[in-house]
């Protein structure tokens, strides 16, 4: 069996974002393997631990995505393919490029994050599935394989959840609750150095152009009410919400 995880590198949640020249400037920002993609990587490693076979991590993005790729290798993925592309590329266009590599790998399944913390897009997984003509199960919280050709998965809907049976190969996207990812251990980091990381330059044109990015932080009152007397504070709070904000 072969399991593929597709990942992105995104800003760390605590980073302060800046705008430079009408676009988000990530210079000096700590970049990490996206958390939802991390769930995908962890699940791929677990599937490999359970069923044997090979695991591959795939990323399409800037040169610096390599750090996130190495993190996945350090967690335990066998090898990596990094499609290097500069500039923004929308998920539909990315799916085209990634699908070509995935078809060549012919895996049992592909796992990716349900959404990533930079582009806030949920499209990569389903678009990949369409490119490969495979079914997609998005927002997966549980998966079990039944041999190489069938899987049973639980996933979230808009309201509630459902359990589906799906013929493999298929694409799955991760959701919270799927697993608790392991830390890349020190031995893992040292082993990762010797793992294969293939870099392939990719040039593709984006179907979507980002014209402008702004940070419009809603200005907040930041009014602090003295909490020394909790009862008085509570009453003052309710008064402000009722009389000033007029929201209750």
């Amino acid at each position: 069996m072969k399991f593929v995880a597709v990942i992105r590198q995104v800003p760390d949640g605590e980073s302060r974002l800046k705008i430079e020249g009408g676009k988000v400037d990530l210079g000096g920002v700590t970049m990490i393997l996206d958390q939802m993609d991390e769930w995908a990587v962890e699940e791929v490693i677990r599937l490999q631990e359970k069923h044997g076979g090979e695991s591959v991590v795939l990323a399409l993005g800037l040169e610096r995505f390599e750090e996130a790729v190495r993190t996945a290798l350090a967690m335990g993925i066998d090898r990596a393919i990094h499609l290097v592309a500069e500039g923004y590329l929308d998920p539909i266009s990315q799916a085209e490029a990634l699908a070509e590599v995935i078809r060549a790998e012919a895996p049992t399944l592909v796992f990716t994050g349900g959404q990533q913390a930079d582009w806030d897009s949920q499209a990569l997984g389903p678009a990949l599935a369409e490119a490969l003509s495979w079914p997609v199960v998005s927002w997966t919280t549980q998966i079990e394989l039944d041999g190489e050709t069938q899987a049973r998965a639980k996933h979230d809907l808009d309201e509630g959840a459902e359990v589906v049976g799906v013929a493999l190969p298929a694409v799955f996207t991760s959701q919270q609750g799927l697993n608790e990812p392991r830390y890349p251990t020190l031995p893992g980091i040292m082993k990762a150095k010797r793992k294969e990381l293939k870099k392939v330059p990719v040039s593709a044109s984006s179907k979507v152009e980002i014209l402008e990015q702004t940070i419009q932080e809603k200005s907040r009152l930041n009014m602090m009410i003295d909490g020394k007397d909790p009862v008085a504070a509570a009453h003052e709070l309710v008064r402000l919400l009722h009389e000033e904000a007029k929201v209750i």
Partner: protein
Amino acid sequence: MILVVLEHDGQRLRKGALEAISRARQIGALGAIAGVVIGENTQAVAQEAAQYLPTVYAAEVGSYTPEKWAEAAYAAAQKSGAKVVVASGGRQSRTWTARLAYKMKAGLLEDTLETSADGQHIIGVRYSFLNRVTEKQKAALPVVFTAKPNTTPLAEPAGSSGVVEALEVSLPPTVEVLERLSEQKKGVSLTEATVVVTGGRGLGSPEAFAGVEELASALGAAVGATRAVVDAGWRPYGEQVGQTGKTVQPNVYIALAVSGAVQHQAGMNKSKYIVAVNKDAEAPIFKIADYGVVGDVHQVLPALIDAAKKLKD
């Protein structure tokens, strides 16, 4: 031609459908608008839709899977010659519209706040970076876009009745639905509520949520939970607010013992007013709060319930 995929509940059109129609009408300069109703009981629902649109397709494909919806929408787009497809956003919609966009080799604009036409392009405004950045995107036709729920006025009926046409769709290989687990719905719906009261891990125990429920009841509010609370098993996942939970935009969001991690903020940072009560003055939530109290939530909450009840009377 513009195609609107009309969300429905098997009987009536949903709010999202009417929002999507409004969005389509806003770019009406690009061409005529057709609709498609996909799923079950589509003929009946299409009749309602025909009050809004001149042509409505009914694609009877059974219950939802992303593959079926994408296939049906694609068939309708081809039949109508649509170069733009519009749908209301939501997890399911954002899954199948991505498949559709790939089929059409279209530019996909996800979860847009507003959209406009510019020649043979669509310009969309949306959030990114966990709802912290507002970005303007442009894509040449063909384009598929989803409208963020509750950002568009609901369309009014057109005044004349359109035509309903059955649409044949060849069913693609897809998943088999084995079991449906519906959410336990109690109280006010989170995404519709004008007031939300959320409890965080700092409340200390699931029992402490009784106070949260009481305050919510007194304010006519929905109850929310942080991811930490849901992971601990104190509250159901359906109450979770945040990147992997629900996104809410009430008039006032009251965060009790919530630290305010960026993934949680992503789900509520557009609330009109934010209130925070936390004993840690350094909690990130205070940076985005309009009103904040640094104090013990176990002492503030009973007093809040008291004051809220008095207000009701």
